């Protein structure tokens, strides 16, 4: 049963032109992730997939890439039915997939990962290395094939994944939220690449939460909600973002904020006057230098975070954000310099106190949730580690509390007892947000908190952040989305290569931030 294709002739790169999915079902317990999906992807076209978190986009992609096997449904390529049992079948069908979370093995180098995937020992490593580098160059990335995956930031990693996927002979390239981690310039070059791929007859399917992106970059759009296709935009249809939002969200409730995010309220963001630098300082970072074992170096970092403010950290991913978040949450102590929280060195707080005071939303959910533990256990992770002993009574209470949090934060799960690994990326992020916000920390360190969240959820997150600062807490808000940073922040610091190149207190515009981003290079 090795053949992926029922009929003998293999479907190779340029031959195929349509992939049709009909009646695709995939259920996880009671959750109907895909509930009868019909969609057709064509070569030579860019096709955007939209939908809220948990709408079934990633599941659909995983079914097509052989990660999941659908419960039922047909997949046809050029009218011939194919069975995709595993990723190798999918590749043989000419489908290249870039997943949302990395599929690279962290202990190996990029090149070793590629060799593994190619699975042919006859291939010469240097040839593969050249092809990987070349593929990266075509995308406008520079790639070091000998870099170890574990040393890469999420952004580098996804770029590497994209480059790897584009190495394959494929007629259909599927990308799960490829732009979420890319800086604007890189994003533009990705879309250029989409153009050159489609001109060669290659089809591109991409998931995005940026409606503007979907409208401008794709010729067709499919909207999923609760596992079903609820909308199809064909070439020639004319819709605006508001229509799309209605399709995605599925109700007619107004979403005033959506326009604000997606049209990018350049410089006109309605935030209260920023406190001056003489404001009441909660966190004082002084002359921090050094690099954690796993990351890049921070250089002479000086930052003050005032009470009740949102300090935005703008910058391209991998410029020290992960290190800064480890620094501010106390999980890494630098070689030199100090971090004072409320006048006392952060390292002097005993862990229970520190975990009470500082909320931590790291960039990667693997740093904050244990896949094998249940939703409620993950929500109680820090509480049982430091605050209260996990007696049966308290466990029952935490379980009940988890039920309420699941409601409040709209976590889509098959019960609070379900292991977190079954949740979609966006829902895992909500678990982390729910846990950290519930603590009412005096300082919340949020690294890309809205990544992977749909428009409505992202807006929710920003309103939670606002509520926190209204209560006098401070938030460090890191994002690669400049519009988002501008909307949410009182002041904005820009990080480039482990340095803060400037802090904007007023006149926070994309242009001003862009200038500071250029200064460090």
């Amino acid at each position, binding site marked *: 049963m090795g053949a992926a294709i029922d009929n003998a002739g293999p479907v190779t790169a340029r031959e195929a032109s349509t992939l049709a999915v009909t009646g695709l079902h995939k259920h996880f317990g009671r959750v109907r992730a895909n509930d009868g999906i019909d969609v057709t992807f064509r070569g030579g076209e860019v096709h955007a997939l939209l939908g809220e978190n948990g709408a079934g986009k990633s599941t659909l992609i995983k079914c097509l890439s052989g990660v999941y096997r659908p419960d039922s449904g047909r997949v046809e390529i050029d009218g011939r039915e194919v069975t995709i049992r595993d990723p190798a079948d999918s590749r043989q069908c000419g489908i290249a997939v870039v997943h949302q979370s990395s599929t690279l093995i962290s202990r190996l180098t990029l090149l070793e990962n590629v060799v593994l995937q190619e699975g042919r020992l006859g291939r010469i490593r240097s040839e593969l290395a050249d092809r990987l580098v070349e593929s990266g160059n075509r995308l406008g990335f520079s790639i070091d094939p000998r870099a170890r995956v574990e040393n890469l930031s999420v952004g580098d990693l996804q770029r590497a994944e994209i480059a790897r996927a584009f190495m394959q002979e494929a007629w259909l390239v599927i990308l799960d939220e490829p732009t979420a981690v890319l800086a604007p310039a890189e994003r533009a070059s990705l879309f250029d690449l989409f153009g050159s791929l489609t001109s060669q007859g290659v089809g591109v399917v991409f998931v995005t939460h940026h409606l503007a992106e979907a409208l401008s970059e794709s010729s067709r759009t499919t909207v999923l909600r609760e596992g079903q296709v609820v909308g199809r935009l064909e070439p020639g249809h004319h819709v605006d973002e508001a229509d799309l939002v209605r399709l995605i969200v599925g109700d007619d409730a107004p979403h005033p904020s959506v326009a604000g995010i997606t049209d990018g309220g350049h410089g006109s963001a309605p935030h209260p006057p920023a406190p001056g630098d003489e404001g009441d300082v909660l966190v004082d970072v002084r002359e921090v230098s050094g690099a954690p074992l796993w990351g890049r170096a921070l250089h002479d970092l000086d930052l003050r975070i005032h009470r009740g403010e949102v300090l935005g950290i703008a910058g391209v991913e991998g410029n020290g954000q992960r290190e800064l978040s480890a620094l501010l949450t106390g999980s890494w102590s630098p070689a030199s310099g100090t971090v004072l929280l409320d006048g006392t060195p952060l390292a002097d707080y005993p862990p229970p106190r520190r975990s009470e005071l500082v909320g931590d939303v790291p960039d990667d959910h693997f740093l904050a949730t244990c896949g094998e533990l249940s939703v409620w256990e993950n929500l109680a992770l820090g509480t049982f*580690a430091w605050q209260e002993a996990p007696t049966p009574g308290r466990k029952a209470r935490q379980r009940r509390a988890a039920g309420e949090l699941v409601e409040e934060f709209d976590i889509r799960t098959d019960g609070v007892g379900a292991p977190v690994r079954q949740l979609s990326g966006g829902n895992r992020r909500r678990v982390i947000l729910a846990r950290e916000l519930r603590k009412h920390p005096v300082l919340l360190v949020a690294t890309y908190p809205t990544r992977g969240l749909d428009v409505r959820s992202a807006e929710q997150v920003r309103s939670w952040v606002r509520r926190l600062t209204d209560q006098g807490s401070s938030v460090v808000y890191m994002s690669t989305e400049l519009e988002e940073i501008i909307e949410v922040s009182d002041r904005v610091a820009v990080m480039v290569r482990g340095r803060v190149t400037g802090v904007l207190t007023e006149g926070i515009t994309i242009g001003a931030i862009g200038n500071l981003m250029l200064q460090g290079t």
Partner: protein
Amino acid sequence: MRLGSRGRLRLPETVVPVLAIVASLVVLAPLVQIGGAGIAEGYREMFKASFGSMVGVGSWLTSSLPLVLVGLGVALPYRAGLFNVGGEGQLLTGALVGVYIGTAFGGGPGAFMLPLLAAFGAAAALGAVAGWLKARGMHEIVTTIMLNFIAVFSLQFLLRGSFKDPDLPYAASRAVNDGFRLGRFAGDDIPYGIFIAAVVVAAAVYLADYTRLGWRLGLLGQSEAVAVRQGLNLARTRTVAMALGGGLAGVGGAVELLGNQYRIGAHFSPGWGFTAIAVALLARGKMLPVLPFALYFGFLQNGEVRLQAILGIPGNLVLILVAAPVIIVAAVYGFRAYRKTVMVGT
């Protein structure tokens, strides 16, 4: 071709080791046959060895006690993601310290607590060394194996010198004084050590499942990265986990010596420290399941002698019964982990 829906049987986690044990009994049957005895006869004799009389029950419990305690000593670090292969050395250290105190002093009512506590402390120190070294990048499997050798050869060295009973023609220590012996009850068959084991099991369950420390150990076992972000001090937590594990194993050694053998010889342990690894693996790092699995392996060990003496079947066959379930369980979990990796794609 249509993709049919998959109805995959999902077993509760605790069932897998039990099924593995049943499977191993089936696997052994033909070997017993080859060994020259009937299958039914073989298992009947093994059963009789432990349940045929009060003496049998006593000897079954006696063989099981070290397994229970060392099993906990392996299971607790396992919970924190540490593989304690040093149970044997820790058991031996505890036994040695227990015997030393038991022979050096007179003892009296309640005096047995002293050698038990000292055994816990000494073996905990040995375990802590492995935990401390782990924090400095040396893998605990390597260090605990090396510490086993150190413990074994230290014992042999002592038994050639000052620690040897000069009145004996072979290398063994003096016997523990009556005032420290744990003794037996119910017609001098059932060891009092079972109460000690019960208390220790209860304490281990409490520590692992009802305390913040236990939660932190479990968290570390689940994900080192998450543990660090939650503010755990890896070095300290690992040292504590290995120290507690070592201490529990040490108590196992002391209970055996104070309650059963009284004199320590170079080969006083039939490899409890290693069988305990099988116990802890089948219990999957949970404390309470250690008890039934330890009692089962104790039952096998107790039957081994009888199998050999009465039926003339090589007792080593029983070792297959120890090894086979572990291999089966490892294969099942290994396969699942592989599937999961493939399915999740990370």
